[in-house]
């Protein structure tokens, strides 16, 4: 369960904002429709746009938009945002769905087709979303986007396939939370492989294939992957990486050239953690998890399933 709201996104600080409050330069306001607010999220946006300095905003973070209502999808966010794009010329960063477990389950967040955002905000540099239900990115095409973050408890393969056809020439940071099969993760390792080539995102610096049940298979698929010559940070954190995947990383000479290898929240043994720590790059092996034993079976869970 995700318990903390974002403190930063796309290099900007994030702070809660409510109508009546002043806007701060270089801070992304988070607009949350409170659980007992009977209005609409778009009312908050209207008030934001009326606030002094709104035309200078560098972006915003969309918190819970549903209040206590159900059947309210992110279309109620995307449509008014797209309609307001002309009033937001400096808009660089947008996160849709900074919603914690106490507000709504990640798997219940009703997303929508957010592809109109790409066209409406040509200067956008960072786009992030949470929740995979009804989520679509179209086939992303954007000249200036540097960071794309898709946080889910179960990412449908259609989205991975769409991203593997994306045209994002300036993308530096690609972060996908692949999630659990129980929550809609039907991506196969072959769907991931196109992302590991060198040509798709020529400027990529960070590749995050996080929160994944396939962490071991991904680690193995990285053997000989051209992307490793480009990126500086490989992030396989929040998943269920075990010794098998970790050994594949150790056996992969390209891993040693990374600046950072983030594996936190994993199921590796103490011995394997010792070996990983000896890699010449920075390695995060914090949050060692123990599987749930049930009879002969041991269950491993990603950090954020539902």
């Amino acid at each position, binding site marked *: *369960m995700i*318990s*903390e*709201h974002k403190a930063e996104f796309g290099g900007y600080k994030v702070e*809660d904002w*409510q109508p009546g409050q002043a806007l701060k330069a270089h801070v992304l306001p988070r607009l*949350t429709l*409170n*659980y*007992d607010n*009977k209005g609409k999220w778009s009312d908050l946006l209207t008030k934001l746009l009326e606030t002094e300095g709104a035309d200078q905003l560098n972006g915003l973070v969309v918190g819970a938009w549903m209040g*206590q*209502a*159900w*059947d309210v999808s992110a279309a109620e966010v995307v449509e008014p945002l797209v309609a307001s794009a002309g009033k937001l010329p400096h808009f660089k960063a947008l996160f849709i769905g900074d919603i*914690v*477990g*106490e*507000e709504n*389950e990640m798997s*219940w967040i*009703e997303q929508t087709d957010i592809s109109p955002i790409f066209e409406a905000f040509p200067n956008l540099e960072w786009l992030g979303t949470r929740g995979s239900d009804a989520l679509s990115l179209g086939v992303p095409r954007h000249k200036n986007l540097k960071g794309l973050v898709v946080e889910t408890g179960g990412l449908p393969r259609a989205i991975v396939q769409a991203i593997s056809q994306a045209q994002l020439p300036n993308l530096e940071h690609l972060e996908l939370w692949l999630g659990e099969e129980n929550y809609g993760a039907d991506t196969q390792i072959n769907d991931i492989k196109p992302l590991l080539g060198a040509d798709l995102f020529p400027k990529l610096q960070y590749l995050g294939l996080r929160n994944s049940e396939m962490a071991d298979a991904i680690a193995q698929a990285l053997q000989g992957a051209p992307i490793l010559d480009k990126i500086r940070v490989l992030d396989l954190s929040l998943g269920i990486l075990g010794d098998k995947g970790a050994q594949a990383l150790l056996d992969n000479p390209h891993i040693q050239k990374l600046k950072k290898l983030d594996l936190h929240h994993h199921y590796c043994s103490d011995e394997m953690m010792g070996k990983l720590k000896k890699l010449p790059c920075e390695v995060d092996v914090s949050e060692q998890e123990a599987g749930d034993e049930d009879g002969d079976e041991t269950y491993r869970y990603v950090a954020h399933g*539902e």
Partner: protein
Amino acid sequence: MNFVLLGNADSPRVAGFQAALQKHNFPPAKFVSWSDFLRGKIQLGEVVQTGDFVRIESPGRDWDVEKLLLQRGAAQSENEGAFSWISHEEIANLHFEKGRLWPSRQWFFGLLHALQETEKQLHNAPPHGVTHKARDIEIMFDKPRCQKLLQETKVPVPRALGIPQNFDDLTSRMRAAHCRRAFIKLAHGSSAAGVVAYETNGVNHRATTTTEVVRSEKQTRLYHSRRVRTLTQLDEIVETINALCLHRAHAEEWIPKANFAGRSCDLRVVVIAQKTRHKVARLSKHPLTNLHLLNERADGELLREKMPPDIWQSALHDCEKAMRYFPDSLCGGVDLLFTPGFRRHAILEVNAWGDLLQGVLHKKQTTYEAQISALKNATQFHS
């Protein structure tokens, strides 16, 4: 000061209070066990001497006492006829089962009967003081009633959804109130026994609970477990909530809780002689924050820094305001939540015996030591 203590012999509450008396250099309390009292072996009027204070402690967590209270509540439960109850014969044949939830409405009636008897016996006793008014314990152990009273005194509380008859009734109440998440609790339960956090998006359902339903041919049995379970199958959720409704359940909106140290959190605030004292933050990975579920705890004062001073002050003020409804009770444990981002607060419950916080000190005193200190200065408890 001399005390008479009505409680259960093996209870850490009794041990904690006796230790506090020793710390204050007062003689140990004259102890009367609930089981002797309920069996009529001891009359409080004969034990209490002039100038004594009478402290009524929780009768909980004692199998013998549990059965005696169920016996006492049987007639009234049968008469009411609305909720689960068991007969004298059945009670006599019961054997202890760990975690079993017995008909809590009946237990509550038994408690009321017993509390009324303490008052009757004390009526004829020499002049003395009491630390917990029977009337206050009665209200605090009736969650729907307590919440309504707090709301009437303008203390912020979750919106009540009433007393659902069953799962269908609950969901129609939720729809009518535009509420997609609710807490269902035993109306007369204590701690996390018989609590369900239920949510729906109209298609999917999810319940987090400590309650397990075991169905046999003859009956449906409820158990309380420390293992918090998440149910996603509708039939399991319906069965659990239906079973709790048979015991008289209280439903209210589920207000999202603030986050602290990566956990959902709320606060237990002990109010003694109308002042907030001990504050414990209860941190949980799931929506149920009760301490005995092996949740983590933290010093409640650490939360102060997370919010503007006026929010903190107004929350503590409301804890005291809630206890002002119970001026004759020396102590109450108020459960307080803040919404995410610490924007607002609400009072969830007032617990008559919410002062068992082992190892938690305020101004170097345990909750029991602080109550004795307060009693020295507070005149309203002296008769």
